[in-house]
């Protein structure tokens, strides 16, 4: 028998599961997330291994979804000193790199940036030749400044990546084995947002390395020789090696795992997934089994970026949300006791009225000691429950594209707060193992490959261009470890570029398949 291990680190809890080769959970556990994250992962690993009576060498794959990088950016901790090289001179000088960044984040990464001659036009012709001599001088300066990571962006690199690639070669010649983040591999059209994404990526390479290495060594210590994968924002996997290169792609992997887990556990490919945690509820949409992506710029740690993130609404409602009654009105969240729920909630002997207490009082959940809630007025509790229901219903409605009812899948430990019927839902599904859907989503995740590039239709037909794009995406998925027999195209998007001649079209294709077992 072969098994796979899935671990997902959330804001409040770290969850782990072990699935057999038919994807059936044989063990699951929930432990508190720790401040250093890694300890929580180790605790979850210990717990789930204790529960599963399997031989450790049967665990073939280990998937990790983690918030290491997200936390590092938000808390400005453990970030690398980044050398930022933008290729675009003579254009772009009026808006330098980092100009829109919060000051504390700039100082956390050192703020060394340069604008170099080069880049391309929208149709792929050169804006200006790459100034290699100047680049060598810049890289020497970066060496003296002891930068730990380099980010390179170039004007219209999604159309023509030559200058970014050549610049990377030269950086490597001078700096040796330094991590290099190329903007065209991370973001899409929109120089500032793509550059920001590349710089954030460069800033979290150290954190990612620590996270991946400590996960790998923990597994080794237990005698598990599994292949390690890290989950990313679109709900698919990256190899550990790839994750070290593109760590910023893990930023929204938690919600993406919940969405994929919800799809797997319910068997539905098109639905809304409501993931209720300890402090917040994330609401996302499944389209053909994958998270719907956000179409607008996403801010991370106060920085605008444009790489692909799941389209989510996050509301301040969770199992630990504080419930208050003020002037006859009920307020739920956004303040929460978070991971201290089992100490501070009334039902656990604490002195704070939380959303969980309401759920227990109304008989929706069996937890702690319900007698501790005898003083709670039933009509007030119902008012609070109504409020929670409305909060979720309104958010569900905002995620829809039309008023038709859709299936709603409830996952996450906090989903016990919610009733079995919701406005706008054709059905409300609470699948088995809902409380660890995120870890299951990590464990069952597929590997993917994608392409996002601008093509000219001047000399080639659309069909021909699409075929090439799809083939590249499929090859990328196989390169990442997918079984060629299971690889499918899961997403195709075409965007004609407005106001431009030459029939320029931007094509994004994603392919995904299962790991070879």
């Amino acid at each position: 028998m072969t098994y796979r291990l899935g671990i997902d680190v959330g804001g409040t809890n770290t969850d782990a599961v072990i699935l057999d080769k038919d994807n059936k959970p044989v063990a699951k556990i929930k432990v508190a997330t720790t401040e250093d994250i890694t300890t929580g992962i180790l605790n979850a690993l210990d717990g789930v291994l204790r529960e599963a009576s399997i031989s450790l060498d049967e665990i073939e794959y280990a998937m990790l979804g983690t918030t290491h990088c997200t936390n590092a950016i938000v808390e400005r901790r453990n970030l690398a000193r980044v050398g930022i090289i933008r290729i675009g001179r003579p254009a772009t000088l009026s808006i330098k790199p980092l100009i829109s960044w919060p000051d504390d984040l700039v100082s956390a990464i050192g703020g060394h940036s340069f604008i170099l001659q080069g880049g391309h036009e929208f149709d792929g012709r050169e804006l200006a030749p790459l100034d290699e001599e100047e680049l060598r001088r810049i890289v020497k300066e970066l060496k003296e400044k002891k930068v730990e990571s380099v980010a390179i962006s170039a004007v219209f690199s999604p159309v023509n990546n030559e200058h970014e690639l050549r610049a990377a070669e030269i950086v490597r010649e001078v700096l040796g084995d330094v991590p290099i983040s190329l903007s065209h591999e991370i973001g899409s059209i929109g120089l500032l947002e793509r550059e920001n994404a590349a710089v954030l990526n460069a800033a979290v390479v150290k954190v990612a390395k620590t996270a991946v290495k400590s996960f790998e060594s923990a597994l080794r210590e237990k005698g598990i020789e599994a292949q390690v994968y890290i989950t990313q924002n679109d709900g698919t996997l990256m190899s550990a090696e790839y994750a070290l290169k593109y760590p910023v792609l893990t930023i929204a992997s938690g919600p993406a795992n919940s969405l994929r887990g919800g799809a797997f556990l319910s068997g539905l490919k098109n639905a809304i997934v409501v993931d209720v945690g300890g402090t917040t509820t994330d609401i996302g949409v499944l389209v053909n089994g994958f998270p719907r992506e956000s179409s607008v710029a996403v801010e991370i740690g106060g920085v605008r970026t444009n790489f692909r993130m799941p389209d989510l609404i996050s509301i301040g409602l969770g199992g630990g949300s504080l419930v208050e009654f003020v002037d006859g009105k009920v307020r739920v969240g956004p303040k929460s006791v978070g991971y201290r729920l089992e100490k501070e909630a009334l039902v656990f002997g604490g002195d704070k009225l939380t959303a969980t207490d309401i759920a227990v009082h109304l008989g929706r959940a069996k937890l702690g000691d319900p007698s501790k809630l005898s003083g709670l007025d039933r009509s007030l509790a119902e008012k609070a429950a109504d409020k929670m229901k409305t909060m979720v219903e309104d958010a569900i409605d905002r995620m829809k594209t039309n008023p038709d009812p859709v299936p709603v899948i409830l996952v996450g430990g906090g989903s016990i707060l919610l009733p079995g019927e919701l406005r706008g839902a054709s059905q409300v599904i609470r699948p088995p193992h809902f409380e660890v859907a995120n870890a299951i989503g990590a464990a069952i995740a597929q590997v993917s490959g994608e392409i996002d590039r601008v093509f000219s239709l001047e000399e080639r037909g659309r069909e021909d261009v699409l075929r090439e794009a799809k083939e590249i995406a499929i090859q990328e998925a196989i390169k990442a470890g997918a079984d060629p027999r299971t690889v499918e195209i899961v997403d195709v998007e075409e965007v004609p570029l407005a106001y431009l001649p030459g029939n320029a079209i931007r094509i994004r294709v994603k392919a995904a398949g299962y790991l070879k077992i």
Partner: protein
Amino acid sequence: MTSYHGGCSVRSLDKEAIENLAVGAAILGTGGGGDPYLGKLTAIQALEEGYEINIVDIKDVPNDALVIPSAGMGSPTVIVEKLPRGTEIINAFKALSEYLGMEVYATMPIEAGGLNSTFPLAVGAKMGVPIVDADGMGRAFPELQMTTFHINGVTVTPMALADERDNIVLLKTCDNYWAEWIARDITVRFGGTAWIALYPMTGKELKKAAIPGTLGLAERLGRAIRDAKERRENPIEAVLEASNGFELFKGKIIDVERKTTGGFARGEIRIEGIEEYKGQSLVVHFQNENLVAIKDGKVIASVPDLITLLDLETAVPITTESVKYGYRCFVIGMPCSEMWRSEKGLEVAGPKYFGYDVEYKPIEKIVGEFE
């Protein structure tokens, strides 16, 4: 610098004022016009480099002074990718003032709403000239001739177009429609964007043809929202007070329909009333911008008056590109400049120009009838 526009009083903008102005400019964009974000960043960088951004009141501009508005034109996709060098418009200015044989006294935006509202700030700063607190639209519109300059007989050309490589084109055309037509082609040769100096005019012409006080209005709108949020008050009230605007509706978007007919991208936003508007419905017709609002079958606002959708909680304007089912919003209407309400003004930018069979009526009159 002071000797250059000596005697008149100018007001300097700091970073916070620029942020406010950009927020207000997005509201005046009436759902279109592009994001004032990039221009805001050029202005903030100019400040950080030690330049000053000075705003001059329209009445303080001498009658014989030369004022040249500045703007970017072209594909939004290219503007966000190939950011300006910063010297393009300055080159265009120099070429144009050389051609005219006069020094430039000040610059200004052609539109107070959207993308082009904020770019002239850095241009003025780097040229050492003030920016006139005025514009030619009082909002955002999609074409070069849709300005109060045009309806008052000021010509788009002579204009200068420049790119980041120091290419400069001087253009003189027989009328303003030809200027729009030819300039679009040059823009493509430049690589999709051109930075332009256009509608040169004297202080005297300016006072007749421009809409005064619109930068100040944008700034006040932005500040009103910021202050209201800090005081945890409803920002909508503050917006309405600052703009002499009207709350037209409050509701939830239940449908957005987009279609292309006769080469025009048109759309309709259907909004279902909530709270005191429960049971009522509103339809907003849009192209790039919001153009006509119809409440329960009756027109309650139409272009050139301003119609903007604001997010119910954050008061952030909702653009016609991003609008979708499920948003909860306020719909507000603001009166346009009186110049747009003339026969010539309505011919250039009234509902009929955009293809709607609607007789324009000033918003304050319609709202009065409703009440």
